[in-house]
């Protein structure tokens, strides 16, 4: 979850600009990092994208269905093992999930420790006790969220985005939708760069601080311009698509072929996920 807050600060132009610039560059960096890891040798990198998508979905469902904490923990360990086997730095994989988690899910479920009705587990203060049910449900939520994020990370980090897209056909996603997803992904970067340029050029012409009202007007102008640019650009893109023969129907190449090895791993992973669902009931 992306969030940035600066309550209590006096509002200065640089804060807003820098927050947004920081967010934009972080997104670009994240994508670059994923590209880098997906090019490394490793178990998940060597598998067909469809195998990975089905595997991750199957385990996400197993995590979601499980009524057993040990099963969810086991799936987390499996995700960790798969990350290690796929050249993902273990420190990064663990930190990315567990450092961010307490700030959102942790803070949200903190009261649940105390307010969930049930037998008292630990009396913290008079009138304030951790209940057993509260502790268990907090653990469920924390483990479920962290394991699910880890599983998604596994897919994101080991698979170039265009292969994820072509792999989505296995979920019966229509070709038109995949084409639009792919174009969106590509133009997100273009628009991020455009927005980045607009912010930077504005920043370069600002001396001193702007008040919050000025900030808002500037953001609105940039947003409005970006919207107009997007619409204009879509006409240009349409013309260029037309010039290359696009008439509204989509034909995608499907260069991937499942190898026996892919089938074998798919069987292993799906088998494990089914086992997890059965044991976790």
């Amino acid at each position, binding site marked *: *979850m992306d969030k*940035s807050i600066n309550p209590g600060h006096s509002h200065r132009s640089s804060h807003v600009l820098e927050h947004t610039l920081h967010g934009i560059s972080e997104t670009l960096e994240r994508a670059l990092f994923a590209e880098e890891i997906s090019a490394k040798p490793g178990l998940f990198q060597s598998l067909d994208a469809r195998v990975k998508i089905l595997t991750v979905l199957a385990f996400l469902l197993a995590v979601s269905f499980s009524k057993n904490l040990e099963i969810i923990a086991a799936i987390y360990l499996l995700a960790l093992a798969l990350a290690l086997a796929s050249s993902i730095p273990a420190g990064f994989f663990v930190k990315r999930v567990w450092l961010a988690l307490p700030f959102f899910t942790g803070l949200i479920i903190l009261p649940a420790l105390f307010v969930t*009705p*049930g037998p008292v587990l630990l009396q913290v203060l008079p009138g304030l006790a951790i209940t057993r049910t509260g502790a268990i449900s907090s653990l469920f939520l924390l483990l479920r969220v962290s394991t699910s994020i880890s599983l998604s990370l596994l897919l994101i980090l080991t698979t170039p985005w265009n292969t994820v897209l072509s792999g989505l056909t296995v979920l019966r996603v229509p070709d038109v939708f995949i084409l639009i997803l792919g174009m969106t992904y590509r133009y997100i970067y273009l628009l991020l760069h455009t927005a980045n340029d607009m912010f930077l050029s504005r920043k370069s012409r600002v001396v001193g601080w702007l008040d919050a009202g000025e900030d808002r007007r500037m953001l*609105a102008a940039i947003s409005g311009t970006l919207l107009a640019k997007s619409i204009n650009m879509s006409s240009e893109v349409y013309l260029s698509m037309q010039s290359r023969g696009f008439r509204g129907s989509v034909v995608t190449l499907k260069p991937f072929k499942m190898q026996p090895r892919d089938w074998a791993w798919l069987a292993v992973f799906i088998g494990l996920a089914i086992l997890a669902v059965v044991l976790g009931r």
Partner: protein
Amino acid sequence: MIELFTFKINKWLVAYYAALLVWLGTTAMHIPDGYLSPLTSLVMFLLVLPFWMIGVRKIRETMNARSVPLIALLAAFSFVIMMFNIPLPGGTSGHAIGATLAAIVLGPEVAVIAVSIALIIQAFFFGDGGILAIGANCFNMAVVVPYVGYAVYQAFSKGTPINSPRRLTGAALGGWLGVSTGAFLAGIEFGIQPLLFKAADGSPLYAPFPLSVSVPAMLIPHMLVASVVEGLLTALVVAYLQRSNSNILEGAAIPAQALRLRGLWVALAVLIVASPFGLLAPGTAWGEWSTGQLSAMGLQAIPTGMRQLSGLWGAPLSGYNLPVLGNTNLGYVISAVTGIVIVGLVVWLFTLLLTVRPGAQNQEHQR
């Protein structure tokens, strides 16, 4: 003893959420995987599905081949706009969804598709928001916000010139109400989890808070921050477009076509808003929550199967064990609204399935 216990906790809880208020309000409503049960996730997908179908059909009818790059660019735009950090008067700042703006420019049907694609990309490629929770996130942010925001904007701007200040009021209120409604629904989705899904020992398996906590915890901070950000951004951008690029507001992006369903939508909105008031007046017939109250008082002797069944049956009403004032009324309003929305959508889905014309696709290829 239990009365005393819960009373103390409630005060503590209020203090805790007061401290979290601003912080929570600035976060976008991206629900991660793990908060919602698989059943809820599935239901949310089913709720979104007809809106996706309507959006795709609308795009085919009005734009055909042109639509592919337009949708892609606008989805990319709504992704980028979600990253903008917008300062509020008073010193906080937050992120907008941009869904109201998309609805004003594109119409709500097409905005649903653009914002959904942005959310799907966030989930699949950036890990923001869960993959199984895509249905819920798309419903709360990509369906509810555009439709509610657009309805309000239309109500204010109908018959006014393009540079009318009334459009700004409509844009601001639409954005505010849209995101607030989305947050309210997210609160309900969280709040029904502990009623429906518990482990054998009574521990909630997913989001643990009852409706009486989850709805205000989602709604109040969003009403104060995130919704204000959305309303502010929408109004400011509309104002900018009025000055500099008014043809976008005139619907130049999409060929204008009367919304056939608009009347129905307004009627539905009025019904949804109005019906709970009728239910508030006679505060009788509260038999349902007695089972829930019994188990809260420590009576674990109810058979598990029966407890689960009663949880399923009296779901929206059974969680009001915490003696917060006005809870029972809130519960009634929530269950009424949820019921109306679900029934309405199911009926609508069926009519939609019956009226899908198989010829639409062929026409497109002939051009």
